């Protein structure tokens, strides 16, 4: 399974965490498409804690974390 963690406004109308079958998704962009989130709306895409791009491959066991533009200090 792929664990998808959603944060900030991405939680609006969605679960905080989803589990998806890794066989159904080739790239992170496919996961975004499933969630109805545009590639351009994602400010930070982490795969296993590493900053990644939507075209990156995803596999069973991966943890994907998605953030809209947010920040602080």
């Amino acid at each position: 399974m792929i664990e998808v963690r959603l944060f900030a406004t991405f939680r609006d109308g969605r679960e905080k965490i989803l589990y998806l079958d890794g066989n159904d998704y080739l790239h992170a962009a496919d996961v975004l498409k499933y969630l109805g989130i545009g590639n351009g709306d994602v400010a930070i895409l982490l795969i296993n804690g590493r900053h990644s791009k939507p075209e990156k491959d995803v596999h069973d066991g991966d943890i994907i974390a998605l953030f809209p533009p947010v920040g602080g200090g």
Partner: protein
Amino acid sequence: MATTYNGKILRINLTDRSVKVEDLPLEKAKKFIGGRGLGTKILYDEGIAKVDPLSPENKLVYATGAMTGANVPTGGRYMVVTKSPLTGMIACSNSGGVWGARLKYAGWDAIIVEGKADKPVRIHIEDDKVEILPAEDLWGKSSEEVTDTLVQIYPAASVLNIGPAGETGSLLASIINDKDRAAGRSGVGAVMGSKNLKAISVVATRTIVPAYDTDKLRDATRAAQAKIKENGVTGSGLPTYGTAVLVNIVNNIGAYPTHNWQSSYDAEADQTSGETLKEKYLVRQGFCHRCPIGCGRVINLDGRIVGGPEYEVVWAYGSNCGVHDMNAIDEANHLCNELGLDAISTPCTIAAAMELYQKGYISEEECEGVPLVWGSNEAIFEWTKRMGRGETALGRLMAQGSFRLCSHYGHPEISMSVKKQEMPAYDARGIQGIGITYATSNRGGCHVRGYMISPEVLGLPEPLDRLSTEGKATWTMVFQDLTAIIDSMGMCLFTSFALGAPEYAAILNAGTGTDYDVKQLLLVGERIYNLERLFNKEAGMKPEDDCLPRRLTDEPIADGPSKGEVSKIAITLPQYYEVRGWKDAFPTEETLKRLDLV
């Protein structure tokens, strides 16, 4: 010709109770902008680097920025500049709220407080009328009590004060203004307390300062406002979630220190995130003077409407102390405001004490009924109170900060500090550039002296690989210099998520009549940073003070997404000195000449 400077400085000597009005030397002001730069220049020229920080010889400069009070976004900040009793080096603590703007409107660019009153006093300023008044009745009182008392006397006043922590000489004492905004770091409140000065209230008739070119300033402000509104972070993320939205980001990259940096990932961190704060406690946004962002949190704390915690505080009282109760963190944050304590260094010192207790260095008896166990709400409340009020032997020791605490027990390596000041909420093992900021910050462990988190974690203005060292020295230097400019202008660092040097140059030039291009402006920032370093050199700083705690260089992160990483500061520090034009941690003669600092 009018400018955003008032052209006047107030010098108050508490020993002989004299009040003098001095002209602001305009050329000096423009060369160092104002605020942080001007305050440092004043102290450097007056020989403060060599004095005992808690003696009457130390001076406190309450400095407004060049654009404080002007019609610019976030133009309302002031800085407390002094010699720090915590680090023994330069302190520059920056705060929002409305107090800074009120001081500017009252007609003053800065107040220099020197000497020591023989008994507790307060200062009241009403435009050009300045009074030194008895304050024995306020001594021992909390920020809220002091503010409420003074606002009853002067309904239009903005109030700045110390709490009990500043009175009892805690080196972690802050200065609070407007009840919940803080010049928090480096023990500036202890310096104020050492002078027997409890509060400064300001009433001002004016509500705006003039500008050198009003039309150009309006245009520059409009352009900046539009960028702030369009930017995802300043226009949407910060207003909606506040700074604590960082909890989940930093935790999910595995750079979120827990249990005094013994680990760097917390599976339960979401319980204390900005999202949770919004969902369960937020009443409304909090805004500082002329702020279009509103990152502040006004929260409901058990029926009381109070200022909520920032990201750093959520982390420091939360995961760093093993606590996952948002309400407890809110309460502890409120206690820091009431007692006048640095809400970063105080919980970080409690976390260090918890590790000392975990390892058996602090005994059960010393805890006097409140064991320093991880995750204990009672521990974070009671030890904050004891530190703030100077109660119990261990509380008084902890009130001197984690370095002195851990050194007392023979384990200074447990103090997660740089130059004796506690580092904030980003593990430099998993974010290489922020390690350079920590190690070389002139005021000790600090993130807002060069916020490398912006490119390394948030990807702004462009993404950098957080684990790489490549180019980080130059990036850090530019961020440090730009930050010195923003601070000296009296604007909020958060505007830099949306604005760059061209926007700041346009605003400053229109306000003050300078004619800086971007390169020249960055040179001014570099000059300020180097002047702070010269102050530290005179204060006795040694090259080896530019370092990170051994844990960051020798102990790989134990678990989480950044498992196995260590700081590569040994590689990046020489690169940083090279780009700075420094040798052995200090500017070369050539660098000083280039910056017109000789």
